[in-house]
């Protein structure tokens, strides 16, 4: 087998391995105060059984990206383009972005093949139905189990997410549970139909630190057990280090760096990523924290060139032209002119 063939075979395996491939996703909102480019050409790949962390500040477009995968964006005044290729259980590759949002095909993916949990466990469950009702509803929607079998499965799901006394908890209303317990219920509900992809939109942000650690442990354990892929959206680099296999750093609606979790923490390459890491406190360190200069610009402004240029210490003349995502030889992607000559391919 020649070198070329080996590369091709590896490429093929990688293709087989990719569950979700977002390409050039753009989402904009028409608001009364102007057009907001929330997501501006995001590319992401999620591989089977792996966790991709999507990191960024509030308003960078990370949640919008996740929501567009399930077609959950508001229908009015939203403009969306790009493709979201998802490998369905049936084996076919669907472009979710082009599916009618209220259509049957979209609904057969929502909750069944791709499930989602959210940031606010306190308001994520409908207050007037019991936890059991809401889990059973998910089971009825996506699985053939009914009656006593469904009840047993619901209890099993609650056990799986570590809820004590699951039988009696089925009859509880959401307001009778703590935030951590509600998030566990959300996870149980998400897992009802064995999804191949779980979108987790800052699932631990609203929780106490100890509860946060428990939920993260739970999610990691469940992922190992069920072999699903996870897209973990967060602004917390500590959580990234604990959860992710791969990391995409997003700034103002664009991926600025994509790397394996080890590479990202060992060799942060984009000035923004480095800035983020420098602004993190470390145990034992005595030097002052270095914040990133300036603040996130208004997403309504239309910018030419590098989005981060205004806040970047290494700014140069070339930054007025938009930098491409440069593939570095060891497998890291970075959107920065500084690395123009190190890179292999550009895209």
């Amino acid at each position, binding site marked *: 087998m020649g070198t070329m063939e080996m590369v091709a075979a590896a490429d093929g395996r990688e293709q087989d391995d990719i569950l979700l491939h977002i390409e050039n996703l753009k989402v904009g909102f028409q608001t009364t105060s102007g057009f907001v480019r929330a997501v501006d050409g995001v590319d992401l790949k999620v591989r089977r059984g792996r966790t991709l962390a999507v990191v960024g500040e509030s308003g960078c477009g990370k949640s919008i990206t996740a929501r567009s995968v399930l077609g959950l964006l508001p229908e009015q005044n939203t403009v969306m383009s790009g493709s979201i290729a998802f490998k369905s259980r049936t084996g076919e590759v669907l472009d979710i972005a082009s599916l009618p949002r209220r259509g049957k095909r979209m*609904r057969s993916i*929502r909750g069944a093949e791709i499930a989602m949990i959210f940031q606010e466990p306190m*308001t994520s469950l409908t207050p*007037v139905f019991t936890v059991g009702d809401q889990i059973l509803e998910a089971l009825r*929607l996506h699985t053939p189990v009914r009656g006593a079998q469904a009840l047993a499965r619901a209890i099993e799901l609650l056990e799986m997410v570590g809820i004590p006394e699951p039988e009696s908890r089925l009859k509880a209303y959401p*307001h009778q549970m703590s935030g951590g317990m509600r998030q566990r219920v959300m996870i149980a*509900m998400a897992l009802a139909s064995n999804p191949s992809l779980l979108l987790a939109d800052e699932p631990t942000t609203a929780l106490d630190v100890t509860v946060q650690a428990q939920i993260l442990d739970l999610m990691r354990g469940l992922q190992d057990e069920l072999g699903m892929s996870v897209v973990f959206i967060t602004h917390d680099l500590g959580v990234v280090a604990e959860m992710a296999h791969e990391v995409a750093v997003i700034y103002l609606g664009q991926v600025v760096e994509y790397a394996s979790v080890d590479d990202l923490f060992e060799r942060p390459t984009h000035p923004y990523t480095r800035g983020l890491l420098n602004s993190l406190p470390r145990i034992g360190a005595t030097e002052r924290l270095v914040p990133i200069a300036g603040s996130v610009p208004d997403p309504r402004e239309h910018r030419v060139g590098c989005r981060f240029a205004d806040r970047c210490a290494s700014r140069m003349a070339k930054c007025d032209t938009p930098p491409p995502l440069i593939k570095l030889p060891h497998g890291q992607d970075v959107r920065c002119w500084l690395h123009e000559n190190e890179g292999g391919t550009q895209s």
Partner: protein
Amino acid sequence: MLSFIFRRVVQMAPLLFLISVVSFVLINLPPGDYLTIKIAELEARGDSGAQFILGQYRERFGLDLPIWQQYWIWISHFVTGDFGRSFEYEREVGTLIWERMGFSVLLSLSTMLFAWLVAIPAGIFAATHQYRLGDNLLSFVAFLGLALPNFLLALLLMYLSVVVFGWSVGGLFSPEYLDAAWSPAKFVDLLKHLWVPVVVIGTAGTAGLMRLMRGNLLDVLRQQYVTTARAKGLPEGKVVYKHALRVAINPLISVAGTMFPAIIAGEVITSVVLNLPTIGPLFLRALQVQDMYLAGAILMFMSLFLMLGNLLADIGLALADPRIKLS
């Protein structure tokens, strides 16, 4: 739940007592009273027999006694079911009210039914089509309904009903059924008359309810759990009707509690214009001529309805929303 209901009913007693004092004082407040005027009138005509009847009134209600004693005589009889006598109609207040109460209740309940049946679907439609043509159209009609005075609407509908359908619409019955025994034909005749006051009285309430329903539902549709329901893969109809509506409709249950007495009190103008045999015109007349026992009894009944309505609404709310505990 039962102890809550019991406590609430017990709590009504002191409240009703306070209301009775205030109503009694208010009714007696204007200078002069019905009887003085009546005596002057009768004496001018030289009617001596009337003096005897008026003397009976004075004795029965202690009208020469201080006001607190008069109050005591009134209220102690009131609780035994003797509501006093109407000077104007020269009949017992109890029989007068019972004659009309049935129609008032019928009118109120029909109006509420109409308001809910129209307002809820319209509100849901408006909320799920926010800022689109249907929503704007419904909002326009709703504001028109809120702004249009009832008497104008009543006259308009009467005109239409007579000219277009050729139905007589004054009152609740056609003349030929007025004193007839109940029969299917009389019922149909009642329905033919009832729709006009129901629409007239109900329009403003319907418009208000619709705006409320729309606002609540829009609020709930923005909640996280609605997104959860959608992310689960539920069809949009189920998301709206099962998850969102069940929460959004709760405030309307509270409104229903105050609506019933509000309609009885609010039908006055319409009932005068349409000549309806309900409580409203009776109440208005009683207040105008200071027919004090009639006015007082109606006030007391309306207060009681308001309290019962609120109690029922609280119970309904507790049944509908597990987060609300009655204690």
